[in-house]
């Protein structure tokens, strides 16, 4: 099976997070490259930890996604998950940019 | 059963659901309610009994089917198989407002805190709360909202035709 990580939305913030499992201790990070990736039976422990976080009302709807290990770290394989990991692909509307353009 | 609310109070439930009328000899005493089909098949036999009677409707049943029987019934049981399935809200209003049913209209199934306010407005006054609900907390749901806009079983007119309430 392909390399996978667990992702979810944080209940209180709504933001995208990825599961890290260090010495059996789970934590959630915004940075996909910090996530704990696993194959096959390694995934069972991740799944269990993710579900526990859901039961503890830390995250909502965790699921596993396929990832690749690249030189710059872990990367999601689908466009959807890439956008989830790095944010909208467009420039967000911002008043400061507008002002600088006006000044230019 | 302590997960039962009647008229905004936690009460003991005196009603027994009953099915299996084929064997006519075994009719229990006390207050029982039966599925609609059994009521249709064995109306006379059921009426001959002492004790109150109720009928349970599926949420696909047309409440008009029992409109002529309502005077003989003390309970209509409605079902909310899932929280999101709101068909029984319409059945309740039709029973109360169109047919003037005076007995208990009871909600069963996914009966949860956040629907009680709407159920009450539709004329439901008995609630078999789902097992995981906290009945004492759920009682608060009836008063979370005090302003209503539209007519329903509890109000004949929309807000613009009522005397303003003092707040």
């Amino acid at each position, binding site marked *: 099976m392909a390399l996978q990580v667990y992702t979810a939305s944080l209940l209180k913030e709504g933001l995208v997070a990825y599961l890290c499992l260090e010495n059996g201790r789970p934590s959630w990070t915004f940075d996909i490259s910090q996530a704990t990736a696993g194959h096959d039976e390694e995934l069972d422990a991740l799944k269990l930890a993710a579900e526990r976080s859901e039961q503890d009302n830390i995250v909502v709807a965790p699921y596993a996604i396929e990832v690749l290990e690249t030189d710059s770290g872990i990367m999601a394989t689908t466009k959807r998950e890439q956008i989830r990991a790095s944010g909208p692909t467009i420039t967000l509307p911002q008043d400061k940019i507008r002002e600088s353009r006006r000044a230019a | 059963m302590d997960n039962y609310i009647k008229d905004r109070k936690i009460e003991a439930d005196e009603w027994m659901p009953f099915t299996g009328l084929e064997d006519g000899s075994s009719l229990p005493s006390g207050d029982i309610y039966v599925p609609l089909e059994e009521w249709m098949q064995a109306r006379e036999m059921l009426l001959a009994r002492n004790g109150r009677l109720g009928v349970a409707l599926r949420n696909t049943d047309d409440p008009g089917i029992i409109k002529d029987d309502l005077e003989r019934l003390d309970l209509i049981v409605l079902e909310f198989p899932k929280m999101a399935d709101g068909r029984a809200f319409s059945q309740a209003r039709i029973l109360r407002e169109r047919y003037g049913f005076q007995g208990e209209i009871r909600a069963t199934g996914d009966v949860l805190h956040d629907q009680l306010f709407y159920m009450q407005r539709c004329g439901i006054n008995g609630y078999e709360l789902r097992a995981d609900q906290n009945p004492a907390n759920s009682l608060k749901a009836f008063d979370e909202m005090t302003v209503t*806009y539209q007519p329903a079983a509890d109000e004949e007119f929309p807000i613009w035709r009522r005397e303003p309430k003092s707040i």
Partner: protein
Amino acid sequence: MYQYSEQDHQLLLERVAQFRGQVERRVKGELSEEEFKHQRLRNGLYLQLHAYMLRVAIPYGLLSSDQMRTLAHIARKYDKGYGHFSTRQNIQYNWPKLEDVPDILDDLAKVEMHAIQTSGNCIRNTTSDPLAGVARDEIEDPRPYCELIRQWSTFHPEFNFLPRKFKIAVSGATQDRAAVAVHDIGLRLVRNDTGETGFEVHVGGGLGRTPMIGKVIRPFLPKQHMLTYLEAILRVYNMLGRRDNIYKARIKILVHETGEDNFREMVEAEWEKIKKGGLHLRDEDFEWIKKFFLDPEYEELSDRDGEFENLLLTNAEFARWVDKNIELHKQPGYRIVYLSLKTAHQPPGDVTADQMDAIADLADKYSLGQIRSTHRQNLVLSDVRLKDLPALWGELKALDLATPNYNHVTDIISCPGLDYCALATARSIPISQAITQRFDDYDFVNDLGDVSINISGCINACGHHHVANIGILGVNKKGVEVYQMTLGGSAREDAAIGKIIGPAFEADEIVDAVSDVLSVYLENREDPEETFLMTYRRLGDAPFKERLYG
């Protein structure tokens, strides 16, 4: 506009308190996500791709300047400094935190705003003509009726758990600027032979994966029956609408599967039983509600102005803006001004907090303190004096809100797409921006005339691609975003669902494909008066197909 009574205020405060309680119960784990979801959706709160999204209602598109300032304040304090005006007269915030939402709702309640029923399987925000009350082709102002529908539908105890979402639109003019034909219920104000006003009742329109134009189930409904008739339709739908398959649960499927005539009979039979009930509307009810929507005290003004006419002759840029973004007003000496939210720099419908504040100030200064939002994701200042147009134009230009493109090729409707949306299968905003950049030439835009491009990032069709002259639907094909094109749709009084023209295009081909389609039109139109849609209807698919795939 409608002014809240004490009870209206009370209701909002109670709802905020209730929602605060629901959030607390969720965070403590007393409410499961599945159950909380029903509650948060009924308060406009989604969990999207990156964060929660809060959808705030703008009832029938009408905003006061103070309400707009509150929207700016919320964007700044709780979000990332901007908001997104949707196609159904709502504004969406893309980054609120769950625990802030009750506070946001408190701030909204202070200015008589809310997020009630902006999502979930209930009756949604009632939408209307953004030119209500000022349009020259108006039969009657639809807003009093919209407000009655708003009150009737708010926390309706029977219709809060419908088979699926339910959208109502009301139009009061001969031109349909509210897309009534693609709503679950569309009401068009009409006059009968005796001069009485009533409603033409359309039921079962909608987009999504099975797009349908609504059927007229009653050509004339006297207005006193408006609410009893709506209640009858909703009751039939609540009891009989399909609940076994989410994709077949909208009322359009019920109307389709039951047959228009059978459906009408069921509604009329139910209506007969309730038409004399408490929802029957009396003359005094109309008098009461219409008082909130009386004409402002317009000045007696000439419909000509020297400074305006001078600038029109001497400043081509101003003349372009007037030609494209200004509409005649029913009152002489006044004009309706469209604020274009369609530039190459910002996603369609997006407005920054500073822009919102500035728009509020402009509304106070030039337009009686009110703003309207439109179905095509723009804003309107509805009551601007002709003589103020030069000054207003200068200010709008500085705010990047004066692009002269209303109802033209770069006035694109776009859903948020895969950049924001958890349901999307492809991105739509980058495509809209690429098209806008390609056609960023006034003479070309002007020559093309009236044409609509709408883009959706998935089959749910929030970008209304089915009813665009040129519709674009993004789908995911084996991991690649590709874009399917439909032609010939319309959301107006000649409503039509567009036809798929052929196989989908890759992201880097779709702008060229749009360009090709526009070229075919320009080459084949009989004269500049013949719009894209007229040419398409005259010629059919063939020449477009030939150019795209031949």
